[in-house]
């Protein structure tokens, strides 16, 4: 857990959250479900302001979708974000399947994030400005989630310019916000993930 300024000028933000009682399957389902405005408020009732999804696929993977989000990052400023999700294999290659087979990974969500209502985009039309990697691992107690962000990735700016554009406080705020939203999600994710799929898998009964 921490924030570091990289030689490139980008800010690397790492967050580790123990999501007790959750699984990688639940986490993956959450992102693939395209949380609407109400779900989004549950996810972080203080910082999450608005939520809309574009190109959400029917297969539940969430791959190729864009989350149009308005959210605060542990302060009073509302940021407009375009979060475009892609296949984790694009980053991890064939090592990804091997890590899943070993049980090192039970969930993976990867995305490009653009900051602002009309962020800069790459030649494929994907927003640029930040890379996001969420990796989860199932344990007997729950999901260990490791979130990593590279703020400033892809922007055509020098290290000095990135340092001005992405100040350390922004990284610290993102770290705090990220930990908070996983903590909030941990408290209700098992209930909604089980209920939403009760036709596919019988829900457990307490008594």
């Amino acid at each position: 857990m921490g924030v570091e300024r990289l030689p490139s000028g980008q800010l690397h933000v790492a967050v580790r959250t123990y999501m007790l009682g959750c699984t990688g399957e639940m986490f993956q389902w959450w992102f693939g479900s395209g949380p609407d405005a109400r779900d989004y408020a549950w996810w972080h009732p203080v910082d999450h302001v608005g939520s809309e999804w574009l190109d959400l696929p029917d297969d539940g993977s969430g791959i190729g979708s864009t989350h149009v989000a308005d959210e605060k990052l542990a302060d009073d400023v509302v940021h407009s974000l375009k979060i475009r999700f892609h296949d984790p294999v694009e980053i991890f290659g064939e090592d990804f399947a091997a890590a899943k087979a070993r049980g090192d990974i039970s969930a993976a969500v990867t995305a490009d994030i653009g900051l602002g209502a009309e962020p800069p985009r790459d030649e494929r039309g994907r927003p640029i400005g930040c890379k996001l990697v969420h990796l989860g691992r199932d344990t007997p107690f729950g999901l260990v989630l490791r979130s990593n962000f590279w703020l400033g990735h892809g922007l055509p700016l020098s290290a000095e310019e990135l340092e001005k554009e992405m100040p350390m406080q922004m990284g610290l705020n993102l770290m705090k916000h990220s930990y908070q939203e996983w903590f909030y999600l941990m408290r209700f994710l098992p209930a909604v993930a089980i209920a939403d799929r009760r036709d596919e898998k019988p829900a457990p009964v307490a008594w």
Partner: protein
Amino acid sequence: MEPERNTRRNLEFIPGVPHPVEDPPPSTNGVNMEFSEAKRLLSPYPLPL
């Protein structure tokens, strides 16, 4: 008589005896990790970021 000082080799709790806690060695896993090195995150051991 001066009581025996508790150390990491002697983890039995001795009431009233200071129990020094050493700082762990700094982790190098993930330090200065540019995005191009993100594959390192696939391994959750020994203590990932």
